[in-house]
């Protein structure tokens, strides 16, 4: 049978960001997939090196609009890792509250989009309607519906007012009945079962080999969650369950996300009810020379930041790794052998976030690699040195 190339992208109604998939198909069956990203590169890491430690928080917040708390969270933890210091307990609780509320809104957003990709627009609209309540909670807590600007190295920037807590609890409780209904609508729908079960399977072994993260790995039976494995924030304090299933198909990835929302509600209510009194900021003065890493469980998996300081008020090197970077290659295992109809939902099932993952490389027109990421960083440093020498700074 003849092979055809079906392009998905660079601009396609399937995804909200520019990226380019080339599906090689025989009839309706996908035999190979190639992913090209890089349409959205913004040079965040380099940008961050030109900002102060405090200002970089706002830069990394803008890496992703959906998980806009996961990056500042990981970044501040990386900075706090450089030297021995302790974040106040109240700040830890507030950070946990923001991170969990964000997880609910991110999972709802994914659920809605997944429904849309399947032509199930009712789920799409309902999930996004429900998400509004969570955004309202965010607005009450942080003053912003997105890009909350709550984090700073050493603590949080804004306290939670006592009178806001009952309002937030009420709003969170109000989403539970609809969330329950959505859960039933997805888990008990025979058509969805027929459509999603056994589709795009990522086996346990493959999940390990690809180092899949977050819900993608937990759906394959790999019990991996930073909140449990290396607890941070207030996650040590309360009882909550890590959701793990074993089939690795798209259905399980949806199940994981839906059930995780209920766990997040649990955590959120615990933190809001038992918010300890005290300071919210450790008031860091200077960051001494050294290196630090910070990793947290974002809605999509582990977000990892590395910060190197040379004793000035700016990071010398800042490295970001978003979870999609690890989850993206799993397409090679999941998409091959499936039909085009299923390919789109499999692509969406890892909840990809391409602008978090953007990397840059320079190739010539024949595809030969000229410079990779390391080379570009080196070139950039050499240029800075040259400029400094020329201008007599040293």
């Amino acid at each position, binding site marked *: 049978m003849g092979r055809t190339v079906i392009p998905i992208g660079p601009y396609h109604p399937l995804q909200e960001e520019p990226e380019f998939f080339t599906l090689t198909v025989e009839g309706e069956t996908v035999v190979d997939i190639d992913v090209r990203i890089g349409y959205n590169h913004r040079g965040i890491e380099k940008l961050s090196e030109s900002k102060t430690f405090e200002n970089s928080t706002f830069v990394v917040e803008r890496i992703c609009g959906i998980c806009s708390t996961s990056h500042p969270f990981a970044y501040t933890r990386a900075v706090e890792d450089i030297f021995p210091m302790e974040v106040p307990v109240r700040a830890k609780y507030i950070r946990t509250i923001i991170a969990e509320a964000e997880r609910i809104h991110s999972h709802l957003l994914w659920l809605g989009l997944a429904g*849309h990709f*399947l*032509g199930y*627009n009712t789920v799409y609209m*309902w999930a996004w309607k429900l998400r509004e309540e969570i955004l309202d909670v965010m607005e009450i807590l942080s003053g912003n519906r997105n890009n909350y600007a709550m984090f700073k190295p050493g603590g949080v920037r804004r306290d939670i007012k006592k009178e806001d807590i009952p309002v937030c609890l009420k709003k969170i409780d109000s989403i539970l009945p609809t969330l329950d209904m959505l859960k039933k609508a997805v888990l008990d729908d025979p*058509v969805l079962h027929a459509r999603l079960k056994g589709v795009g399977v990522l086996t346990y072994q493959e999940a390990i080999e690809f180092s899949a993260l977050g819900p993608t790995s937990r759906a394959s039976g790999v019990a991996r969650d930073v909140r449990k494995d290396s607890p941070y924030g207030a996650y040590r304090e309360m009882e909550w369950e890590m959701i793990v299933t074993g089939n690795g198909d798209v259905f399980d990835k949806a199940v994981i996300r839906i059930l995780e929302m209920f766990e997040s509600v649990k955590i959120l209510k615990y933190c809001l009810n038992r918010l300890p009194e005290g300071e919210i900021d450790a008031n860091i003065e200077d960051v001494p020379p050294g290196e630090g890493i910070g990793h947290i469980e974002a809605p999509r998996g582990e977000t990892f930041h590395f910060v190197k300081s040379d004793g000035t008020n700016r990071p010398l090197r800042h490295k970001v790794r978003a979870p999609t970077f690890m989850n993206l290659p799993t397409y090679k295992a999941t998409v091959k052998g499936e039909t085009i109809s299923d390919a789109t939902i499999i692509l969406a099932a890892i909840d990809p976030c391409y602008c978090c993952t953007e990397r840059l490389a320079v190739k010539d027109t024949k595809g030969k690699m000229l410079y990779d990421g390391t080379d570009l960083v080196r070139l950039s440093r050499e240029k800075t040195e040259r400029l400094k020498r020329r201008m007599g700074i040293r």
Partner: protein
Amino acid sequence: MMFLLYFLVFGLVVTIVMGLVTSWIDRKVTARVQYRVGPPFLQPLIDIVKLLGKETVIPAGAAREMFLFAPLLGFAGVVSASTVLWANQLHAAGFMGDLIVAVYLLTIPSLSIILGGFASGNPLASLGASREMKLVVAYELPFILAILVPVIWAGSFGLGDIIESQKSFMTAGHISGMIALAVAILCIQAKLAMVPFDIPEAETEIVEGPLVEYSGPALGIFKLTRSMLLFTLPFFLLVLFFGGLRFSGPGFFRTLLEYVGIVAILTVIRNTNPRVRIDQAVRFFWGPVTILAVIAVVLALNGI
């Protein structure tokens, strides 16, 4: 002369008006189900008029004549089908076996989409066209079996006879009629390319499939054809299973109720289901749906 009147007034104008009104109902109900406000009443008309005023871009790789001919073919098909139905409805001006003609004419819009898709020379469009082809093959068999039930009850292939025979008791009142009606509604869901059977057009998979290269008036005519089908197919079911339209007294309200009921069922199915895969759709139509249709035919032959 009489036929021309039916063709222009009922086949064309009334069908367009009713089709646009029905598609407004469909969109408004969908919007309300989804917590949205929904479009204003004239929006379906505005959409079509806007498209008619735009430029038609013909892709370089397309078969030019076929590409432009396809939407007109579909439009002609639905207008003719509607004319045949209206002629029987209003004046019993049918002819021997006009039911078979109506069934054929109602298939033409699907064929025109296949034709247009292959003519546009786009991989996504030909993928959509081949899916449409599989879908037509899937739903035509149970659809024709379901249509046989009213034929058996009336003992004739004439639409006029079918309407006449239901004066006292409509086909949908029999058990076999009910089963056949359910089968037919599922089939017209697929004919209208509504979720869960919008597989050929699947926006998020193959970007509207056969229509991907269409723009301007050509696209407008395709969309208009789709709206007119949204009226003609429920109308067809009313004729076959409910004894046609009634215009006087309480009969009018009954007709209105039946019509809105069928449209509401289509809209509800479309809003409570995800899209299925093409192989699942074929298996669904050839398996359970065809078995149901055969049962209905057997029951009808035994007078149940």
